[in-house]
């Protein structure tokens, strides 16, 4: 009984602050404590904000492109890794982008681009986001491949199918839910990512992403527009992750 109560309180702790933001975003007065009626005016203000619209477009470009690249490379990587005998070094390399502190990866990439005199902008954010997204996409697809019957590939090859045909007609359909789950997760991670984008975006506002915009808004203080933007962010992540969760099965790679 005590345990259940504890678990219940944990959920209150985890969801209370988030739900509070969602409720406040609908408060007409915009004040955190005085409820003056339901209103979508802060969402309208958001839609009219030029800086936010530009940042949102940038974020969609970064998340979209990095998701496509990372899902493709991560899927191939997962199949390759699962087909051979396990290697501790390989597992460590694939695990590293998930555990390395963001700030370290951020300064490492910044130093790298600087040494190469590589120009910074949306393209460098995309290249950087692919790094951690490959690792996550690979992990999700690998979880799916654990239940894959490798004899099917052999059967297909014995029947004379080329490697490409086998991939398109046998392997891909079998792991497709995992691949889509990987893409949804990669998109979520990229659209939420702040520190690496912040370091690799370069100077100027042209390549500001939405989280970078949120960060500069938060530093100015609490405003009702941030609550509205926060709510949209949370709902987007929750939808994508729940969808990914469904696709990757009951025991996916991410809980």
């Amino acid at each position, binding site marked *: 009984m005590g*345990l*259940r109560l*504890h*678990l219940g309180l*944990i*959920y209150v*702790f*985890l969801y209370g*602050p*988030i739900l509070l*933001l969602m409720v406040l975003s609908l408060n007409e007065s915009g004040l955190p*404590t005085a409820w003056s009626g339901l209103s979508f005016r802060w969402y309208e203000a958001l839609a009219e904000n030029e800086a936010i619209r530009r940042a949102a477009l940038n974020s969609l470009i970064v998340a979209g492109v990095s998701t496509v690249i990372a899902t493709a*490379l*991560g899927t*191939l*990587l997962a*199949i*390759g890794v699962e*087909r*051979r*005998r396990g290697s501790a070094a390989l597992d460590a*390399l*694939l695990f590293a982008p998930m*555990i*390395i*502190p*963001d*700030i*370290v*990866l951020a*300064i*490492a*990439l910044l*130093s*790298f681009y600087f*040494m190469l005199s590589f120009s910074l902008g949306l393209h460098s954010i995309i290249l*950087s986001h692919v*790094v951690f997204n*490959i690792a996550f996409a690979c992990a999700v697809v690998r979880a799916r491949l654990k239940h894959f019957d490798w*004899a099917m590939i*052999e059967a297909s090859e014995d029947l004379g199918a080329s*490697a490409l045909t086998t991939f398109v007609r046998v392997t891909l359909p079998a792991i497709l839910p995992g691949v889509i789950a990987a893409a949804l*997760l990669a998109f*979520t991670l990229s659209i*939420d990512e702040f520190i690496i984008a912040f*370091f690799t975006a370069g100077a100027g506002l042209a390549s500001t992403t939405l989280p970078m915009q*949120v*960060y500069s808004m*938060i530093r100015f203080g*609490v405003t009702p527009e*941030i609550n509205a933007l*926060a709510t949209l*962010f*949370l709902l987007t*992540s*929750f939808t994508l*992750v*729940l969808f990914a969760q469904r696709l990757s099965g*009951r025991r996916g790679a991410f*809980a």
Partner: protein
Amino acid sequence: MRLKSPSASSLLMAPGLGWLALFLVVPCAIVFLLAFFQRGIYGGVDYVLTWENFARALDPLYLSILWQSAVLAGEATAIALLIGYPAAYAIARASQRWQPVLLVLVMLPFWSNYLIRTYAWIVLLNRKGVANEAMIDWGLITEPLSLLYNSGAVITGLVYNYLPFVILAVYASLSRLDRSLLEASEDLGAPPWRSFLRVTLPLSLPGVAAGGIFVFVLSIGNFITPDLLGGGRIQMVGNLIYDQFLTARDWPFGAALSMLLIAIMLLLLFAQALAVRRAGGERKEA
């Protein structure tokens, strides 16, 4: 059969591994090298080998920041484990049908925007925030309290953000626990608390260690939480690295600090792997 065509498998892995080599391994190697070079007069890098950056990290001023981050991260880790363990235990004891749902509910916030989860605490804790106004309304206090911009707020933020992972890690080891061991313990007359202390807890330690290391490493290298909830008054290693790269322009020193961070992380992971292996060995012998 799996090893039928290792070359095909290498071909599949080539693009992904190539990407990681170019954009992960090479940049990390650059940071490693940077840590041994001198800072240039105008903020650039002089390619002269030196230990100075690491010596500077041990200077009392920086050592105190390192120590403060370790203490804050340690406190966040301890609290996350203390409240996360019973939650994981409760989920592991729930019916099979409910376990996945309860777990997804724990992990869902973890996959949402970190900045926004942290911002929610500013809304709650600031002087005109929800917590203060509510307490004034209820007559508990007359003047708003300074709940934000102190170490308590930073620890709260860290626990809030990383708790889901602790619960997941502990749950993973609890759900793998062999129930017959508990039955055996019960049959031999052990009261539940003793079964827990002598069977459940030791067997779930790998999960505790994995979750604890994760919280500790991500906390000590954190930059957003101390920045937003500590209001610049609480400095952690992450903030220090940030400053070296974006404000002070001392990249070699920032690189040395990053390497220290990675070294701490690897040391902890290594210790955990060793402990798990030893525990596994003992069980086999017994």
